[in-house]
């Protein structure tokens, strides 16, 4: 039974839903397929059948979809099972790879096309700013993998481990991502063609929103699951 509570608009996702309907109705979820390396074609199978085929938890898969679709979605406390923890960590790791291996280079490609219309001083300044941003994100991901995910990997041996970093706000990431958008909107020269500028903005906002969902996943899924897992170990 689907125990998910929906806040805001209703998202009628269920294990019986056909995968095609899911993708067709919510194409923005394709990035999840990419992260989970779900192989196509999948014919006429349902979410539940896909999850059985891939050895995934269907309830967790639906939660991930809902969290990506609705920023105000909150998984119900009693729908979280501590067995989901390792899968959530695997998903977050896959997301890190997705950002560093796909999304950030993709935005960089757009940036290079935009920079062709800027003078050399602006090119240097913007390129250097973006490179710093990528390094900043990479360092953040590495720190999470080292201090949080690696600790979760061996949580059975260290039930009292601290996960203080999970409490750390991600405001810096959001600010820096917004800064790129502000520079593109307000300061790039007029001669940058509007379609190029808009396409770059599309990707920056997509990245920003995805990073926000990523942070929500850590706060609303990972954190309570860690607490549940630690509690289960102490029993």
């Amino acid at each position, binding site marked *: 039974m689907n125990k998910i509570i929906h806040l805001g608009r209703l998202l009628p996702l269920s294990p019986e839903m056909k995968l095609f309907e899911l993708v067709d109705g919510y194409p923005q979820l394709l990035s999840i397929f990419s992260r989970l390396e779900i192989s196509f074609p999948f014919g006429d199978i349902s979410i539940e059948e896909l999850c059985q085929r891939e050895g995934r938890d269907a309830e967790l898969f639906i939660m991930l979809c809902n969290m990506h679709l609705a920023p105000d979605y909150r998984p119900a406390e009693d729908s979280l099972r501590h067995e989901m923890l390792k899968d959530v960590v695997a998903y977050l790791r896959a997301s890190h790879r997705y950002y560093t291996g796909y999304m950030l280079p993709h935005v960089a490609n757009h940036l290079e096309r935009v920079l062709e219309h800027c003078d050399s001083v*602006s090119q240097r*300044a913007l390129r250097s700013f973006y490179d*710093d941003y990528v390094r900043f994100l990479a360092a953040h991901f590495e720190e999470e993998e080292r201090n949080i995910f690696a600790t979760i990997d061996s949580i059975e041996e260290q039930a009292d481990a601290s996960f203080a970093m999970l409490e750390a706000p991600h405001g810096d990431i959001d*600010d820096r991502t917004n*800064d790129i958008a*502000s*520079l593109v909107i307000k300061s790039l020269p007029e001669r940058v063609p509007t379609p190029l500028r808009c396409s770059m903005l599309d990707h920056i906002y997509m990245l920003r929103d995805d990073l926000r969902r990523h942070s929500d996943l850590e706060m609303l899924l990972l954190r309570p699951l860690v607490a549940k897992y630690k509690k289960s170990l102490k029993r």
Partner: protein
Amino acid sequence: MKRFRVAIVEPSAIVAEGLESMLSRYAEYEIVYNVRSLSEYQSQRASDPDVVLLALQYAHEDVGQATKIGIQTAIADSDTLRQFQATVSIYSSADELAKILREALDSPADTNFSDSHELSERERDVLVLVAKGYTTKEIATELFISPHTVISHRKNIVHKTGIRSVAGLTVYAVLNKLIDSEQL
């Protein structure tokens, strides 16, 4: 001890003198202007004070970078009150008055932004120094203004540019030719 420069712009001499008398009990406040009209204030003003206590009739007037506090002498509508960061009542005690000013100065105006998204000359000066890596204190010393005023300028810069990080502001300064990248 940091002293905040206060301007009082209030048509009623009784109210204005009362406010000055009450604030003079606190060493942290220095009354630099006490005038009966906004035009008088504008003609006398050589530099922005930290805070302006302003009659509600001037609610929609711009007082530059100073924290804008309304002097409520009568019932006012919410649109008028929204123009101020805080309001003081003619029934406020001296302690209440000092507390309201202190709280307003601790959290410089978020709602007191000018409608213009163009940076003022002073904001550009601050932005250039931020881009060069100066701290708030160093900028205050360089420009002969208070750190509070620098903070207020920085908030306005962030509001107008939409950019929060120092690195982003530096790029903004370069792209807008406010600074030569060689200077960085």
